[in-house]
């Protein structure tokens, strides 16, 4: 946190390298969060830019009470929520859908090419989650925030984080049962199903 505060104060002091460092640290993750909320790629870029301008302008309000990441994600999620309120869900142009679906859209095509089927299914399943579930999964599972940090970033009680996370994982598991459970796990499902039928 001390380093975070130092970085924040350097940005506030007008150090351009500090802001670039900040952008390198959080740019990809904020962009990822935004893309989970905004389907249209141009809108997602605009919103990512807006968020960083907002973060830059208000960096003084970060006081080092929590990790800088928590503060960044909280601001980003708030901005995403505001964006979602302002604009109804938009249809994405077909070309853009194709572009998004294509591994070429990702900046690392090699990596995309070797993605396992399961990994792709996980990605798809994640996209199927509700926004509330999606954001808690991204913050906790992908970005490694603790429950407490998630609670701060999402501005909800820690119990809400737990329940949302559990429900999200349960939905992911339901969607991925054939992949996740494998041979042994499939057996569990079958046994449970049989147990239900047994009087």
């Amino acid at each position, binding site marked *: 946190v001390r380093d975070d505060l130092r970085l924040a104060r350097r*940005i*506030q002091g*007008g150090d*351009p390298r500090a*802001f*670039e460092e900040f*952008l*390198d640290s959080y*740019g*990809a993750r904020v*962009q*990822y969060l935004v893309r989970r909320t905004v389907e249209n790629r141009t809108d997602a*870029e605009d919103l*990512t*830019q807006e968020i*960083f*301008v907002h973060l830059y*302008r*208000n*960096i*003084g*309000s970060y*006081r*080092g*009470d929590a990790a800088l990441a928590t503060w960044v994600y*909280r601001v980003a999620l708030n901005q995403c*929520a505001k964006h979602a*309120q302002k604009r109804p869900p938009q249809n994405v142009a077909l070309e853009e859908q194709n572009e998004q679906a294509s591994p070429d859209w*990702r*900046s*690392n095509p090699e*990596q*995309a090419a070797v993605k396992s089927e*399961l*990994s792709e299914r*996980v*990605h798809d399943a*994640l996209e199927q989650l509700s926004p509330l579930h999606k954001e808690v999964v991204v913050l*906790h*599972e*992908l970005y*490694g925030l*603790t*429950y407490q940090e998630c609670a*701060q970033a999402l*501005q*909800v009680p820690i119990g*809400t984080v*737990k*329940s949302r*996370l*559990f429900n999200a*994982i349960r939905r*992911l*598991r339901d969607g991925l049962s054939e992949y996740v*459970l494998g041979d042994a796990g499939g057996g*569990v499902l079958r*046994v*449970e199903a049989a*147990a239900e039928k047994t009087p």
Partner: protein
Amino acid sequence: MTPTRHSQSRQPMLKSFLDRELPLWRQLAVRLHLARCASCREDLRAMRQIGDELRGQAIDPLDPKLKTRILASVQEITPVPTPPMHIRRPVLIWVGGAAALLLLASVTASRMRFAPMSLSGSSRAADSPAAMSNSVSEPTPASRSFTGSAASEPQNRSQAALIAPRDAVVGRSEAKQKVALRRAGFDIDGYRFVTLSGQRIDIPFKANLNSLRFARAEDGRMTLTQAFPSPILSLGPADALQNDAVPGSRWQPLPASFSSLRPLYVRPVADWTQFTALRWYPNMTLVGGFASPESNDASFVWLSGSYVRIGQTLYPDFAAYRAYADVHPDAVYLRPIYQLSAAPILDAAKRSGSAHGASHR
């Protein structure tokens, strides 16, 4: 052991166990259970696998063009200076004065509480923030006729204090600041509070109705507490916020039946757009509204015990009130009174000046 569905009830705990978010004794309990429950072991394995896959998801680096755009866009922006954490305290010389004023105000108020209703009093003056500063409870005849200046807003600029929601965020190192209030009000731009010592505290909405949370006061006193993620206004059973934009109207966020000490987000209406379009009438009291423990708009629900009262008529729900409003076009909409957005957030002196203008409108 034959796997059963009992594990479903244990899954939330299993997830916390997997994430190392359980206290030690619970971890031990889960470990003991896992040793004899194949079903839970399978659940744990599945959760772990999903977690591993999620963590293995590639996060694309920031688009270089976008990075350049962002860096360029902040070139001409200056970060807002760090706001002070503390509420400015008046100098010692004012403490004695404020205490004396407070004493005088309370004596005057207690006498006037039993005064006969003054129908001839100036309603504009009576409804001004100064007029209601002695009480935030029911607008009794006494309070309506109370136009004295003993308990009015601070007369000196040094007594004014402003905090923005972001200032109200306190860290571990800072004790929560809690101030007793003698008055609470709002206009279209935000909340305005006057402390017992005469300090003024403004909390702008900034088009966001989540800038404040509400809780029942343990001791029945109206207080404002700095807290994360937003300040908490603790209210007694009859405490209300005066609508300073619409004389005679007020909002009592917590119905009398509400007893939770846990803070909630409460709004008169479901969202900001409805708030700006809300129709107010003189002698209207909105009790309760929409509430949620969370700040996202979708989670707000009509708070049990809420109602709208206009004059002597009670409207038990929002639909009934709206039916009244539809046929009574003489409504007044919220408008800026405090001039909160007219000055920089920390420019206390200018704000103080404008506040005086507002209170003597």
